[in-house]
């Protein structure tokens, strides 16, 4: 292993670190009145970084197996990068008008990139120490981001709820890891389950460990933080939590369960089965009665997490590839919905579903993007969301989970009702005082156009799924 290899294997981490340091230096050199100049710099550098992350890399291990990477992990990081880039585009206006005048734009980007580097280390981790560092680095700065509106009580409350419950979740997870360590005497993923005599203690540890991860994916019954935090946080942070944070946690769950703990599959499959049924059902039923758009999208994303578990249950290369494919689609779909909510909030400060009544008359293009996103979330055929769900159900049915797929299909039908509520409000209803015509900035438009292209293209472009399948096959060999 030459020193060149050590850099190319960790190129995502190196590149985000360089961006981080450049931004930090620029922020110190610029005085507060010229803080807005940081924004194009951050977005430009990160766009280059995102494009660079799509080139396939090498597989290998570093630091004696604490860090490992391969093509699948590179692809997962590219998905996370794409999501963050879209969020950067969509939050441009908010950062420029709300944060930059107070000299806080730099802090926002620095925290965001720190979280992202934590996620890289999380999904590349080769032992539990690296896993823990990555997990905390990808959680703690998000609490600071959530409480970013210092003058707003809702934002601060959301921050407190997130930091306390994240601390509880990581404490429980650590306790679980320590019990598993007591049985196996090893923290490296590569030979974690060599010595498995005391099964009971191992299972107890596994259950505690999984509940820590389930908190981060916001699976029922560990979801109580999600709606409150999503509602209170700034929209850019909400979309980050519901898309990037969730995607990274799903990736590491997938990697751990399929490649580190396959011997315990009987136990974790039972746990995930129950969690999946609960998550889909509770998420959907609560989504029915929401009136705030952010809360509504929060419960919808809880319900979507339940569907993702179907793919993990199916396991093996097919199940893993459907999960990665679904996450890719979910990124574009959910960010389109959050982008529209952000555009309307930027212009008018409103985020209740009632305010969206008759939106089509005044803002046909924005409401069209929202309709596409909601159709894709609901899984209506020409959109990408349909193919994502279809492959997940197919993979689960292929392994004989017929009852679970039936429950999932019933839940999709329920979800169709509440996804169509905003559509009805926007297209069919007329309002006495509809929102005025909104002219969103060019950055927001780029963000929304990227999402729409993703929603329309990804489902139709089948080589993409084959590519992901070949990556997962290679990984699980």
């Amino acid at each position, binding site marked *: 292993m030459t020193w060149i290899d050590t850099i190319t294997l960790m190129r995502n981490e190196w590149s985000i670190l360089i961006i981080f340091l450049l931004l930090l230096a620029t922020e110190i050199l610029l005085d507060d009145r010229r803080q807005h100049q940081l924004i194009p710099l951050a977005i430009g550098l990160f766009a280059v970084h995102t494009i660079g992350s799509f080139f396939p890399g090498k597989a290998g291990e570093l630091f004696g197996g604490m860090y490992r990477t391969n093509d699948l992990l590179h692809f997962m990081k590219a998905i996370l990068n794409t999501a963050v880039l879209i969020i950067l585009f969509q939050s441009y206006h908010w950062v420029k008008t709300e944060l930059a005048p107070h000299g806080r734009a730099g802090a926002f980007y620095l925290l965001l990139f720190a979280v992202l580097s934590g996620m890289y280390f999380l999904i590349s981790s080769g032992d*539990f*120490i690296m896993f*823990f*560092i990555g997990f*905390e680095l990808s959680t*703690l700065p998000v*609490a*600071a981001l959530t*409480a970013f509106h*210092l*003058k707003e*009580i*809702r934002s*601060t*409350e*959301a*921050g*407190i*709820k997130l*930091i*306390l419950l*994240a*601390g*509880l979740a*990581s*404490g*429980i997870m*650590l*306790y679980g*890891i*320590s*019990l598993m*360590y*007591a049985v196996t*005497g*090893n*923290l490296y993923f590569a030979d974690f389950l060599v010595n498995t005599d005391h099964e009971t203690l191992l299972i107890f540890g596994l259950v505690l460990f999984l509940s820590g991860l389930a908190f981060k994916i916001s699976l029922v019954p560990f979801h109580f933080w999600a*709606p*409150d935090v999503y*509602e*209170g946080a700034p929209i850019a942070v909400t979309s980050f939590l519901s898309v990037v944070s969730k995607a990274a946690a799903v990736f590491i769950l997938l990697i751990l369960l399929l490649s580190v703990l396959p011997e315990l599959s009987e136990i974790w499959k039972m746990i995930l089965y129950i969690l999946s049924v609960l998550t889909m059902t509770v998420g959907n039923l*609560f989504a029915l009665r929401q009136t705030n758009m952010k809360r509504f999208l929060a419960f919808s994303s809880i319900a979507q997490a339940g569907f993702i578990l179907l793919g993990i249950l199916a396991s093996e290369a097919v199940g893993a590839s459907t999960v990665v494919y679904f996450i890719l689609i979910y990124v574009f779909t959910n960010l389109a919905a959050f982008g529209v909510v952000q555009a309307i909030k930027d212009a008018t400060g409103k985020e209740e579903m009632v305010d969206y009544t008759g939106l089509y008359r005044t803002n046909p293009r924005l409401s069209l993007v929202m309709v596409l996103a909601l159709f894709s979330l609901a899984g209506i055929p020409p959109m990408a969301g349909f193919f994502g769900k279809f492959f997940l159900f197919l993979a689960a049915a292929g392994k004989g989970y017929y009852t679970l797929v039936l429950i999932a299909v019933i839940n999709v039908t329920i979800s169709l009702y509440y996804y169509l509520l905003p559509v009805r409000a926007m297209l069919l209803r007329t309002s006495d005082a509809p929102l005025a015509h909104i002219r969103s900035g060019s950055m927001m438009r780029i963000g929304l156009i990227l999402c729409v292209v993703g929603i329309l293209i990804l489902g139709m472009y089948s080589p993409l799924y084959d590519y992901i399948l070949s990556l997962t096959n290679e990984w699980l060999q």
Partner: protein
Amino acid sequence: MDSGIQISDILIVTAIMFFIGVYGFVTRKNLIAVMMALELIINAAAINFIMINKLVFKTNLHGVFFGLFIIAVAAVEVAIGLVIILNLYRLRDSIDPEEITTLKH
């Protein structure tokens, strides 16, 4: 070193610590006390790692290093938590968790 301490003793102590922490987390009426309960939970895990390493798997130092990292990260967590609690106090003059009710179902 053979001080007569068994690994089962340690596990019982840390399990008690863990559940005191969970109980305190749910019942305390002050956010600072909730943070302290959280520390109990995290430190129970840290003690577990270090003592399991010392008493059962003596050939390497995985558990001890994990314990070190846990202490560092727990400090960060408390720092961020206290900052946000401080901000809440400035906005609302109270740090009672029962009064954090702006966001509700």
